[in-house]
């Protein structure tokens, strides 16, 4: 009955690991051509450059898992950055309090998204589009559009507080030789990946995303699970926001905007990893690292910045075509 030829298995292998193979090939190529690339220090720099994106992208992955889509993550990051820095600079909040406020804000944004989707029944994309505008707006209103930095002027007076060392440590400190954001990325990456693939909650999240009606009749409290997903997504975005604020050492207006596209890209690229064809934690990490490796290597090669998007796009399209046409050839031939 079953005749799996060697060729089939090979094709299967290519399909399943197309993107990983490509990533490995890139790393080998850069390491050979560029002596500075293959150093442990550079590896840390690459991870550092994608850490915040990867953390936020884990949240996006969770929202994609329940069949939702959290467009508000970028605004969430902006808002949390302004909130945590303003708390410290304007109101002299201690770092711990500022961090807690930031995380709570992220969770609340997630809760609001979840309630809009579940209780008000607004479709995911629309609900999070709305909150995207609201929180991008609130991030600006918070400081009347001004950036926050130690010594910012508030109504003619220099603000009383400042961004302190312990807070900045979150962005720049080093633990076991690794920058704090990288450590956080690794820890949360493992936690979210295991949660999604091995825990009961992860299974229920996937069930809701796969067929919400069926999940409900099988006893899954669909509404609660969806709200949970958005709260997790919002909280992870706010972790990214806190780390970003710490790394920048200030509250840059609109700083989160670029994270929406970057994190969605990482999560989507993750679909093609290990033949998942659906949101998955490990894939998202690989997606983020993939982009980081590429940009780091191209920069070292001194490739003009204006060709980097093209190269990134071309490699991505190539990997996708390889992954997906192999996948379907396999299914069709079958």
């Amino acid at each position, binding site marked *: 009955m079953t005749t799996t030829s060697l060729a089939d298995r090979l094709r299967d292998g290519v399909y399943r690991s197309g993107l990983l193979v490509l990533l490995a090939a890139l790393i080998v190529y850069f390491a050979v051509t560029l002596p*500075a690339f293959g*150093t442990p*220090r*550079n590896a840390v*720099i690459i991870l*550092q*450059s994608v850490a*915040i994106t990867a953390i936020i992208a884990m949240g996006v992955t969770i929202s994609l898992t329940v069949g939702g889509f959290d467009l508000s993550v970028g605004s969430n990051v902006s808002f949390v950055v302004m909130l945590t820095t303003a708390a410290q600079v304007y109101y002299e909040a201690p770092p711990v309090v500022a961090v807690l406020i930031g995380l709570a804000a992220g969770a609340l944004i997630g809760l609001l998204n979840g309630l809009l989707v579940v209780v008000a029944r607004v479709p995911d994309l629309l609900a999070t589009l709305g909150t995207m505008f609201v929180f991008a707006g609130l991030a600006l209103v918070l400081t*009347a*559009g*001004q*950036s926050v*930095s*130690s010594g910012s002027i508030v109504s003619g007076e220099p603000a009383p507080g400042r*961004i302190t060392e312990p807070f*900045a440590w979150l962005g*720049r400190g080093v633990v076991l030789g690794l920058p704090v954001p990288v450590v956080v990325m690794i820890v949360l990456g493992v936690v979210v990946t295991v949660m999604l693939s091995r825990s009961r909650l992860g299974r229920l999240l996937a069930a809701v995303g796969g067929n919400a009606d069926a999940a409900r009749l099988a006893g899954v409290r669909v509404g609660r699970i969806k709200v949970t997903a958005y709260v997790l997504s919002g909280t992870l975005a706010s972790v990214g926001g806190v780390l*970003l604020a710490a*790394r*920048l*050492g*200030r509250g*840059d*207006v*609109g*700083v989160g905007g*670029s994270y929406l596209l970057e994190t969605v890209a990482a999560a989507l690229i993750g679909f093609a990893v290990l033949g998942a064809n659906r949101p998955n934690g490990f894939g998202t990490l690989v997606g983020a690292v993939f982009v980081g490796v590429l940009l*780091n290597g191209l*920069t*070292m090669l*001194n490739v*003009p*910045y*204006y060709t*980097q998007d093209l190269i990134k796009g071309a490699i991505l399209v190539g990997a996708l075509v390889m992954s997906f046409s192999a996948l379907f050839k396999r299914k069709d031939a079958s």
Partner: protein
Amino acid sequence: ASTPAADDDTVRIALVRQLSQGDYYEQWLAGAQAQADELGAELQIFNADGDNAQQSTDLDSAVAQGFDAIAIDHGNTETVQPGTQAAIDDGIPVVAFDVDTEVDGVVNIAQSDNELASLVLEQLVADTAGEAEVIYAYVAGFAPLDRRNAVWEETLEENPGLEQVAQVGAVNESTAADTASQVSAALQANPGTTAIFAPYDEFAKGAVLALQDLGLEDQVKVYGADISTADIEVITAEGSPWVATAATDPANVGAVTVRAAYLAATGGDVDDSIEVPPFLFTRDALVESGATTILDLTEAFPELSTPDVAPVD
């Protein structure tokens, strides 16, 4: 002068940029690259594409790779400070353009935004005799704009006849088009407007677009800042309402920065604070010069090039 990196004597300079996209940055880089080529130095470009966290990481990366000098082009104090400190601690000279790193031992280069704004505003006050309803284009949170804004606020105080009737502005990839929509609306609401202060060329172009849409080129004048080839075309166009702009030549500023970095790397003589003075262009002067490109401009206005700033012998 395009020696490969293998040569140990080649001076290697890291250029850590906050932004790359847009005429200003493009021409800045062209000037920097040309200067590096002329000096036989190797320039490696780190582009954060507006991502400040990335710029911070780029700086770390440049320090790790042990360049002979690091040039920082724009950025925020807090974000670049730790990397800069690390570079100085490692003995790598740092040249910072348009960003105050607050680190000792850094060569600071600035195009004076204060002076730039003052030049244009003096022209505005002179043209209007200090009496005008003005639409002001400004978005907070961008360092050069914030500095120019401070001058505008002073000017308002000093000239009670000037009234800011509306504030507009949007910064994104389609700044000009979005600003145009807002200026149109503001003009509808404030028909008495006679001047628009738009101290960033994308804002100015948006304002011109709006005036053209409404056919108000004769009634409202635009006072801008910065200059590029495209800007020259807009300013010198028949009946253009954009009557004055103040600017430095970005290519020149780029070249100055590279020269300073080269000098710092090779132990040459370089001041620790360098200022590149801006220059006021009125529409009339531009039209008269017949310049259509930045290249023409540097010929017509030799003051724009400042080879004597941070000279390499």
